[in-house]
């Protein structure tokens, strides 16, 4: 399915609805990742490619993206975060074919993706690995181990960093300043791009800039993007949407949807 502005808005609305109905937090990090994941699944991920979500707390955005690609049903989304679901708060073990690994504790996904990429290299198979990390996740030493390893072995991995500037208990720059992160990746020998993580054309172009070898895309994003009361706020990392915030966001996104449809017609 082509990635239209309408589809992006629908996905954002469905994400908010899913989180609101399930009374689940972690909305902010999902909203910062959604455009990246939508661009990846609709504009880049090929038949032989694989994706590992390292920032497992953005599972909601991944589920919505898989739904938009026809890989999860609306009934699946309705079960999100409820008893008996396979859509747990962080990606589950085994039960969703499009999700190779359960992640949630940060600093695991990149190494797992490196293993999958190394297997492709050893077996002479086609395909590229994509892996999405958060920015706070770069506090984890294991990510730097994977960065060194993947570059040393010339693995075909495209790493995306959702750089929203906020982590669990404060701003990344106040906790353990990572900047200049892109320069750090370059110093480790990685081909590094910097994009607006909410501009799907730019994100898509970055995905297609090269299709072999290690590449990192530093995607500058906003936590809570699309929900004015949440944008750039630490509370959005944990707290569920209030009825007022949800209503406000829905109205704004619905208006945008309507305007876009009218413009097209």
């Amino acid at each position: 399915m082509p990635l239209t502005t309408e589809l992006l808005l629908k996905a954002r609305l469905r994400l908010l609805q899913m989180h609101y109905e399930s009374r689940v937090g972690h909305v902010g990090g999902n909203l910062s990742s959604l455009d990246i994941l939508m661009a990846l699944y609709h504009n880049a991920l090929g038949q032989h490619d694989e994706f590992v979500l390292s920032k497992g707390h953005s599972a909601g955005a991944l589920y919505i993206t898989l739904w938009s690609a026809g890989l999860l049903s609306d009934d699946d989304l309705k079960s999100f975060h409820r008893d008996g679901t396979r859509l747990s708060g962080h990606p589950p073990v085994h039960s969703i074919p499009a999700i190779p690994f359960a992640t949630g504790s940060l600093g695991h996904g990149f190494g797992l993706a490196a293993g999958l990429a190394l297997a492709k290299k050893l077996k002479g198979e086609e395909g590229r690995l994509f892996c999405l990390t958060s920015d706070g996740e770069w506090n984890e030493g294991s990510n730097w181990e994977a960065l060194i390893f993947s570059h040393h072995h010339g693995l075909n991995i495209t790493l995306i960093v959702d750089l929203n500037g906020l982590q669990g208990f404060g701003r990344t720059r106040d906790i353990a300043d990572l900047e200049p992160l892109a320069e750090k990746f370059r110093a480790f020998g990685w081909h590094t791009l910097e994009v607006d993580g909410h501009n799907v054309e730019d994100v898509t172009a970055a995905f297609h800039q090269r299709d072999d070898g290690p590449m990192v895309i530093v995607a500058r994003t906003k936590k809570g993007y699309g929900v004015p009361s949440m944008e750039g706020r630490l509370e959005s990392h944990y707290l569920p949407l209030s009825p007022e915030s949800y209503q406000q966001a829905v109205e704004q996104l619905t208006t945008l949807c309507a305007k876009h449809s009218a413009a097209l017609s």
Partner: protein
Amino acid sequence: MRQAFCSALLESARNPAFVFLTGDLGFQALEPLRDEMGKRFINAGVAEQNMVSVAAGLAKAGLRPWVYSIAPFLYARALEQIRNDVCLHGMPVILVGNGGGYGYGVMGSTHHAIEDYGLLLALPAMRAYLPAFDGDVREVIQLLMSANHPAYLRLGLSEQPKWLSPPPFAAWRHLLAGDGPTVVIAGPLAGGIVDALHNSEIGSDVWLVSELPVVELPAEFLASVRRSNYLMVVEEHVCSGGVGQVLAHRLMLAGTAPRQFVHRTALGYVSGRYGSQRFHRAECGLDPSSVVSEITRAVSA
């Protein structure tokens, strides 16, 4: 045991699914394997967390990764990767820890592995293998090469007495038949202890455990415990999560509780001083003469 390990792995070196990862260890032991395996022998550097995650990825893609390091650098440093990436997903990753127990001796406590299988066996689908003699290593490796579950292989130093022809590798092996106290030993320290018991007049009934967790108790072993009413368990591992605790639990479930139960375990660093593996075993009462003395005392009481 490292040399036996390398020789046995060489037999599978041409298997295209077999991948060996080392955390920058293996000097003067693994060079033949490195040379034979080529690009499937990967020195992952001093980065054990990543090495285990990479292995899980390789296993997910259908390969058969083995991961090697000094035991605690692997099971302790990368415990969360073993838990989440390997065990929760049931990935057939083989973790090989060199220097089980106090194997690294005077190198110090950071290199000792005295809580390894207790920690690992708490994880889903994990099994641990404790070869006791050099001859076990090849059989274990053949077994693990086709394993469909996570596994931990604890390597130590074989102390096989010259007179002993051990049965083929198995979870339970009856090393010495006797009508005296029942003794269970885990891992390579069995060699020295069975030798001392063989040379004594106690008539101990000696069993060797080499695969964990203990799932079933052999009927002959249960009969031995019921007859002797005395069970001593000896292992180079702390009490918590050790073979002794698990056996006691199993015996209770089986309704067989011996009148006397003695559990000789690793006790950490009793004097606060360091020494050889022999030194640490003696401090913990794990050396052959301490074990024989304890059993002799119990028999004469």
